[in-house]
């Protein structure tokens, strides 16, 4: 823990960065998939050796291997042996013997890569092999899951394997006491969510206070002062992590900072936010201010500034300062124009709850920064909660870079190989599916207007439903799912809507979405990580049909949605039905989509063509590039702060 304070190399700059990119590109040429596959075959060939071994012998063998790994003296052959052993244990304890492709994935994880394994291929089981090895090595292993439910489930489910191999396994769940947490982190294998592990890390940092590094902590200990501090730590260092849904954690949520905060002491501000919201209501779009949706920016015009000057005359106080008041009003205008209820946030029990734009999930413990959250509360005339004072803060990106060894698995990674390499130095390995995938992709259907798009989607659902095929429709926002639900109700089609409920139920509904005649409307990533098992007779009908009602900024997310159909060799089909009025193209290919819109002049028919589909690809490419640049920028500015605020003590 202490030795890690200065870990995390700065992002490469200049020529180094170019060189690093070239290395990454060259790394793509290495036939990793083939190498791992061959090795996996050797491991499968070791099966004979263990199948007839008695449990006691197996345990003994495991104990022997554990000693080898703890000393760090393993040979490649012993690694293969260990994998084969864990495989046998899995077969005996869970009744599931990892397939060849799962072993391949496990080898990729062990090698510190991102393993791209299609959903339903058994990532959870694959992770047990490298996790066991890491447990044997004795420096701890964190298996990072997407939510608390999965952490608990996987720890319980896979725990049998680990315990057989002589390892302790634990999971972290919200609300645990710090003593329990410490015990859990001291277990050989710890299942936890990224939030919990990061928050615990930050709390440890706060406990350490000004102890800068190992040497200063040791000095403090010798001097006899700070022993208590060090004993209060719950983690024991960041050695190895296997990140499930790596793209979501390491990329989509990468720049989300995790903040430990407390109440701030200036209550007079609440009034100001309410006043700002009132002022914002009096200003006129176009005349007083302009806003740019793509960049999420509001700008006051000269007229607007003057107008504001007149408006604030009777207010006084903070409103006297020009810069401060313009800032407040711009904040309020941003809240008014650019943040929409049910799209960016929902109101839950009188509170503004953020909706994650990528996942469509509710984020009750997150708040917007710089008073934006308060501005939105004021806009919705809710009780304004004070902005909190930050005590410690770290972005997931920075946090995960601290691990000595990191590996990840996800259904969709290859689109983001550059980012995985540049930021985490992890190559991406695509693992083939166990059975060949027979998903039928249909060409995107492009419509000129939103209205005609929704009509087409409903029509598509109706047609599909007649054959009693199950249909899953992915939407981007809560609002869109609600809108579609409304349309379906008008057509008297029975359906389930999944938007931002509790994870466990979510998973159940998703799991049931494969039944015959089912219609499910879900936000993009609802129930991620849960299989949709096909109901009886559904496979004969053609399997699950997935409709994406909008293209996502990241192509990965689209692929995840499509990947919900045709799993494990089942049949299935997928199609995106989109419109030129979608936010994606409006934001990232404004001119092109605008000119196409004009050309088709609001026609209701299908306007798909090579060109119109191309617009969506272009917009996606741009959006992804911008996002990567932005994430790297955040990392760089963090590096800058780290360097220049050295006197304030290291953040990490």
């Amino acid at each position, binding site marked *: 823990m202490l030795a890690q304070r*200065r870990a995390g190399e700065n992002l490469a700059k200049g020529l180094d960065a170019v060189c690093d990119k070239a290395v990454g590109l060259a790394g793509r040429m290495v036939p990793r998939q083939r190498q791992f596959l061959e090795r996996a075959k050797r491991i499968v060939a070791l099966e004979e050796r263990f199948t007839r071994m008695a449990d006691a012998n197996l345990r003994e063998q495991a104990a022997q291997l554990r000693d080898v790994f703890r000393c760090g003296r393993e040979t490649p052959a012993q690694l293969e042996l260990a994998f084969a052993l864990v495989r046998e244990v899995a077969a005996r304890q869970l009744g599931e013997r990892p397939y060849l492709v799962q072993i391949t994935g496990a080898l990729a994880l062990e090698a510190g890569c991102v393993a791209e394994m299609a959903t339903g291929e058994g990532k959870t089981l694959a992770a047990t092999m490298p996790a066991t090895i890491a447990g044997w090595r004795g420096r701890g292993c964190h298996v990072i899951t997407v939510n608390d439910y999965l952490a608990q489930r996987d720890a319980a489910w896979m725990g049998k394997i680990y315990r057989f191999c002589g390892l302790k396994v634990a999971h972290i769940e919200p609300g645990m006491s710090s003593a329990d947490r410490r015990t859990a982190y001291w277990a050989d294998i710890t299942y936890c969510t990224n939030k919990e592990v990061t928050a615990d890390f930050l709390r440890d940092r706060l406990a350490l206070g*000004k102890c*800068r*590094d190992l040497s*200063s902590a040791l000095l403090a200990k010798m001097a006899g002062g700070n022993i208590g501090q060090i004993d209060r730590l719950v983690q024991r260092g960041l050695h190895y992590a296997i990140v499930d849904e790596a793209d979501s954690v390491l990329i989509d949520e990468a720049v989300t*900072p995790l903040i430990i905060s407390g109440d701030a002491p200036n209550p007079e501000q609440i009034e100001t936010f309410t006043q700002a919201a009132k002022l914002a209501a009096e200003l006129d779009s176009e005349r007083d201010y302009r806003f*740019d949706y*793509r*960049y999420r*920016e*509001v*700008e006051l015009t000269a007229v607007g500034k003057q107008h504001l000057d007149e408006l604030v005359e009777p207010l006084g106080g903070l409103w*006297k*300062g*020009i*810069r*401060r008041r*313009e*800032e407040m009003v*711009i904040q309020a205008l*941003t809240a008014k124009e650019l943040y929409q209820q049910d799209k960016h946030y929902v109101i839950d029990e009188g509170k503004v709850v953020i909706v994650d734009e990528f996942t469509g999930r509710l984020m009750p413990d997150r708040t917007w*920064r*710089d*008073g934006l959250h308060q501005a939105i509360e004021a806009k919705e005339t809710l009780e304004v909660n004070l902005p909190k*004072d*930050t*005590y*410690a*803060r770290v972005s997931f990106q920075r946090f995960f870079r601290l691990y000595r060894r990191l590996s990840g698995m996800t259904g969709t990674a290859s689109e983001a190989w550059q980012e995985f390499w540049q930021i985490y130095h992890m190559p991406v390995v695509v693992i083939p599916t166990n059975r060949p995938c027979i998903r039928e992709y249909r060409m995107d259907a492009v419509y000129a207007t939103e209205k005609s798009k929704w009509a087409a989607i409903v029509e598509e659902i109706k047609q599909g439903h007649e054959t009693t095929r199950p249909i899953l429709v992915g939407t981007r926002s809560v609002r869109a799912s609600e809108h579609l639900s409304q349309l379906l109700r008008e057509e008297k089609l029975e359906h389930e809507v999944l938007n931002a409920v509790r994870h466990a139920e979510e998973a159940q509904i998703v799991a049931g979405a494969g039944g015959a005649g089912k219609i499910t409307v879900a936000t993009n990533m609802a129930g991620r990580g849960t299989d949709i098992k096909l109901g009886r007779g559904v496979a004969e009908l053609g399997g699950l049909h997935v409709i994406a009602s909008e293209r996502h900024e990241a192509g990965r997310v689209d692929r995840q949605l499509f990947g919900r159909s045709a799993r494990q060799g089942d049949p299935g089909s997928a199609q995106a039905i989109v419109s030129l009025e979608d936010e994606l193209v409006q934001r990232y290919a404004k001119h092109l989509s605008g000119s196409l819109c004009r050309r088709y002049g609001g026609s209701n028919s299908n306007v798909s063509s090579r060109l119109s589909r191309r617009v969506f690809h272009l917009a996606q490419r741009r959006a992804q590039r*911008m996002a990567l*640049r*932005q994430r790297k*920028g955040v990392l760089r500015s963090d590096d*800058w*702060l780290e*360097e*220049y*605020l*050295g*006197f*304030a*003590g290291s*953040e990490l």
Partner: protein
Amino acid sequence: MPVDRPTFSESWYRVADLRPRLRSTVQIHRQYFRGQMWHVVQDPTNNQFFRLNDSAYHFVALLDGQRCVSEVWYICNEELADSAPTQGEVIQLLGQLYAANLLQAELPPDAEGLFNRYRKRIKREVQGHLTNLLFVRIPLFDPDHFLDRWVGVFGNIFSWYGLAVWLVLVGTGLYFVAGRVGDMASRAGGILDPANLPYLYLSFIFVKICHEFGHSFACKKFGRSDGSGGEVHVMGIMLLVFMPMPYMDATSAWAFRKGRTRAAVAASGMYVELAIAAVAAMIWAKTASPIAYNVMFIASVSTLLFNANPLLRYDGYYILSDWLEIANLAPRSRQYIYYLVKRYVWGVGRAQNPAHTPGEKFWLPVYGISSTLFRVFIVTKILLFVAGKLFIVGVILALAAVVAWVFVPLGKFLHYLGTSGELARVRLRAVVSTAAMVAGIAIIIGLIPAADRGRIEGVVEPSRLAIVHMAADGFVTDFMSSEQKVSPDGPPLLKAQNPDLETQLEQLEARREQLRVQKRLAQTREVAGTQILSKQIAALEEQIQRVEDQLRSLELHSPLESEGIWIAPNIERFKGAFIRRGDRVGLVASLDDLFIRATAGQEVAARLIAEAKGKYGTVEIRVKGRPDMELRGNIEKILPAGQERLPSAALGYAMGGSMATEPGDEKGIKTAARFFEIHIEPIVSEGAENRENVRLFSGQRVIVRFETPPKPLMVQWYRSLLQMLQRRFHI
């Protein structure tokens, strides 16, 4: 955030509770620039400076190690309202102060960070040396104590009395020199003579040491009166284009409160040099000592050309910068130009304007553009000079320069253009406008043909000339001075006397008279004898005739039928001299038929021959020293290479011409390389003969400008580059 200066920063929590303060050794000086107050924070241990504006200073001054940062920030906000620094600005400010080692906090020192910064600084310095091989500084001693001891004496140079003495000295020096300007100028040509170089260098070192001590003592002296110390801790050697010369670090003068004293310190080096120049001028005027001349030359000319030149980063720059009251003139002028491009060409809405006042808006771009152009010019010159002396080093330096000044900025620029967040929403415009500009320039220089001109030098020669020989022996009594128009029936060119002939004539005439008398007698006495006598007389008359002819030919006339010019440069010598028959006295050149013999090196001649395709075009002829004259001519023929002797010494290097001559050749007509000779016949236009200003005279030096078919500038430059490389490096 859509706000220019967001009040809050999410990293604020990291500094909010700290109680830092400036280190106790840090000194702060107040300065005014264009009516705005600034505070210069100086770290006296390493002469690092840091400039703070008023509100930032206000903030820093409130940090006393007792209040925490957030308290101070609230106080600032109360007191300064809008101009108070924002949280982000405070973080930046604290970070920079910390990185400059100016800040201390109650935290344990971050030793690792300290070393990291040190390593980084060293790395940057080494990189700086490597990329700037032409200007390397090697520090050697700390002269501070020495200066302290002597400033009492030498500091007086910079007092009002010192200035009075200086004025008298420089005035006297000018007075001494005033009468000998011509002499001075003529000797300047020999200053780079190889034999003089060692002396020149020694003089240079001497003058520059005085110069540097001038800065240092001035810095000390004004530093004491200003109260800021004025410490000078570094003295060393600077390798300026590999030539060692002394330097001292008087940067502590930047902390002086008044711009005037800062400028005075910057000017002090030149002040000392000019005094030295004045003294040297007096010595030279009295003794004509070459060393005094060297010293005078360096201390005046080189100083005024280089040190006083504000476009280079020497004294003149700092004087200008203090005079304009614009600190960091050069970097800010560059930033301002970038800003103009960003704002107006690319339309970056939120570009930061680095100009604080209206005056700066004028000065910054003016300085930025002129200094950049000058830098390019001087660097090219230096590179060519170095390459001329040391080929390999020159090529390496040139490559380094190309990498450092072309590729690196280009790469950075492209990277900026492609990835900068600032340009995110105007990227298309930025890229398109930049590409359009580049394409525009590329088309102009790469595709559009431009007039392709060349010039050669020549001399005017008459196409016909007659040599005038003496037709009879004689003593010259009178002559026409050289270079006058003559015609056959005009006054004689030369008159001579031959007393022998005259005597002979008299004798003969006397004899003839005698014979005539005899003949008359014989007519009466014996008739037969008269016939003989008649014959004798006839023979005698023939003789007389001949002698008379000879005597007549002692008066020489122009042998040409038409008008011509009499050229007899040595005619003065003949006065009263005896000249034998057949001796050459001069020549008469025809006036109407002149032609130009021009010489050209291979590259020019080859171009002419290649472009002409058998028919040479017309050329423009300009007479040296008569820019108003415009004449045209036709190229008659080009004689192939093979000649080594110039038609006139006037065309050679030695006499200011353009053809390189063999150094050993005293007459200056043997060329270093063989050349082509080009004959050009001037076109005489109607009615122009009588106009004095369009006449050529033989012996005149002319420049012949010719034009080959237009070619894009790129092609022309490439050709000249190749030719230059070939010429300089013989490859």
